[in-house]
């Protein structure tokens, strides 16, 4: 009986996102036809490019990894009623502190064993992101400044802050006496995550790394915090009705800051794993990588549930990796961006469906009245 109702709510929950995805692909197909291509061929390329073979799937998982983190970041904040548009900036700062920690620990302690060094740099990335998010959380809880505006402003600030350190304090020219470079010093070898192809050769050319497991573990941790702890209960209460929560003795301001900090930790880890698993450095970045904004889409499609985020991050990973294959087939990869945008529009306008059914109802009623007459 209870299981039945659980299944029912599950179906009820995923029904709408699935419909939104389906509709978006249908509209995307129109754009593909516009380019003079066959949508079936295009979507076939998309799927085979992202799932056909372990090497391609590995590359899809590589793209999925940061999206799980940013998706978790956005959805965790959402649960507390906060809209963290700043995952982007927290990612940038997290990546920066990861490289900084790698250099600092390495120069103090020399070569650390991996099982110590990797957790250390991950922690540094998480703390960097948390600190950056805490600014917005603090301003919200103490001064009532809307987090949407502060996190947007902090996104752009973060890029310039990062560029400043890449250009100066963390540049190889400062630390290693080389010529000026457009990137930071490299992360020491023993702080880097293992790429899966080193263990399983079938992953071929793909660069998927153990960060994917850290991401999955984080999703489970987020689930546990949200649904199995007092902190999670309080955060969700504040998110659902902050006045009622306050009345019930829950400190709204404390939970707002905490939710923002935890959210920032996830986004910071996105930067940390990207640095430790793939790039090993931070580049001068005039434009941001966009994981934070895609993270919003991931969170919305995943219904702000950590396990839903896992599934929707994979979807967006498939889209982003498959886009390359579509490009090879001669279809502009921007189609994928268009599909992503339309998915969010449908999710945002959940009432579109309701709206359409209302019109239909009204028309039916009208028909009935006319029938009576």
């Amino acid at each position, binding site marked *: 009986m209870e299981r039945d109702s659980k299944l029912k709510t599950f179906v009820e929950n995923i029904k709408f996102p699935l419909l939104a995805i389906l509709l978006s692909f249908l509209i995307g197909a129109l754009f593909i036809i516009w380019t003079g291509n066959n949508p079936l061929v295009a979507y076939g390329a998309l799927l085979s490019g992202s799932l056909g073979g372990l090497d391609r799937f590995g590359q899809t998982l590589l793209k999925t990894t940061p999206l799980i983190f940013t998706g978790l970041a956005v959805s965790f904040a959402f649960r507390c009623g906060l809209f963290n548009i700043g995952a982007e900036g927290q990612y940038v700062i997290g990546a920066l502190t990861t490289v900084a920690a790698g250099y600092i620990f390495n120069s103090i302690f020399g070569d650390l064993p991996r099982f110590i060094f990797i957790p250390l740099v991950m922690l540094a990335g998480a703390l960097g992101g948390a600190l950056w998010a805490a600014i917005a959380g603090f301003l919200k809880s103490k001064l009532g400044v809307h987090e949407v*505006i502060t996190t947007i*402003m902090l996104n752009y600030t973060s890029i310039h802050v990062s560029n*400043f350190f890449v*250009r100066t304090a963390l540049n190889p020219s400062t630390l290693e006496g080389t010529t000026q470079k457009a990137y930071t010093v490299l992360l020491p070898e023993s702080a880097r995550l293992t790429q899966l192809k080193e263990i399983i050769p079938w992953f071929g050319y793909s660069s998927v790394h153990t960060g994917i497991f850290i991401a999955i573990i984080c999703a489970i941790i987020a689930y546990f915090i949200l649904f199995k702890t007092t902190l999670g209960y309080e955060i969700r209460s504040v998110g659902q009705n902050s006045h009622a929560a306050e009345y019930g003795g829950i400190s709204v301001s404390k939970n707002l800051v905490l939710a923002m900090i935890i959210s920032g930790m996830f986004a910071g880890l996105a930067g940390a794993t990207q640095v430790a698993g793939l790039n090993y450095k931070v580049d001068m970045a005039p434009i941001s990588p966009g994981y934070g*904004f895609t993270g*919003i889409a991931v969170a919305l499609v995943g219904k702000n549930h950590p396990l839903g985020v896992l599934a929707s991050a994979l979807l967006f990973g498939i889209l982003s990796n498959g886009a390359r294959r579509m490009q090879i087939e001669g279809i502009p990869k921007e189609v994928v*961006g268009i599909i992503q945008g339309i998915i969010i*529009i449908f*999710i945002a306008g959940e009432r579109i469906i309701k709206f359409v059914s209302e019109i239909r109802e009204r028309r039916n009623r009208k028909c009935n009245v006319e029938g009576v007459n």
Partner: protein
Amino acid sequence: MLSIIIAVVASALRLATPLIFASLGGVFSERSGVVNIALEGIMINGAFFSILTTEFTDSPWLGVLVAAIVGILTSLILAFLAVHLKADQVVTGVAINLLSASFTAFLLEIVWHRSGQTDPVENAIRAKPLPLINKIPIIGDLTSQLTPFVYLAILAVIVSYYVLYKTPFGLRVRAVGEHPRAADTVGINVYKIRYICVMISGALAGIAGSALSLGAISLFREGMTAGKGFIALAAMIFGKWHPVGAFLACLFFGFTEAIQIQASTLGLGFIPSEFLQIIPYVATILALAGVVGRAVAPAADGVPYEKGER
């Protein structure tokens, strides 16, 4: 030295121009109670379609008009979802931004068969010395470096101020943004006002985009707005949701950018360029935090209005 100062002032005015249009757009939308994060996306659409139109019709002013129309069409997505369907305005804005960035890049490939950027259009809107005025010593030098967009932007500020503060329509807009229920009670159509304001916002942001492409580098480049829409949003907040305030904030932000570009000529090379670049963002956060005169949003900003709800 004088010529350097004139160059900096002119460059500041040119850089501020797209921001002025877009932030005025923000003022209209948010004064009526609709948060417009989509300025960035509307701008990129305006930037693209103004170049597209000019390329094929050879008429840049038609390009500006089309940019405004495309801006209105884009803003209708926001209006429909946010006003009609009461969708989350921020989420909708984010979606429009993502969609517009991809859509323009997509059209770039369809029309020009390449990615990155278009060719420069021959007939762009460029700086022109004004007759008579260019004979006046300093002002003549300055004005000869300004495009017509600059004057148009200043005109837009005056008109916006007049409309919002001196007309019955403006009073209605502000009433709807502060207390939609009270406005509704006295017979103001809240939905209609919000629709109109979001559309004005779209037109202005579209023109802002054309000022960025047609009025500056004569071509369209993928992602060329590069956060300008958000700086305009920041200017609107820093200017306390007031047309003149937003205008002054845009000038201030334009100056910081101009100084940053000219830093070495001005002998300011010792200031890290990043410090100057973060000024608009940090200033906005400080303004919101109340450090430099508290900025307070219209009371009903971002709140969907449900008729007949208590």
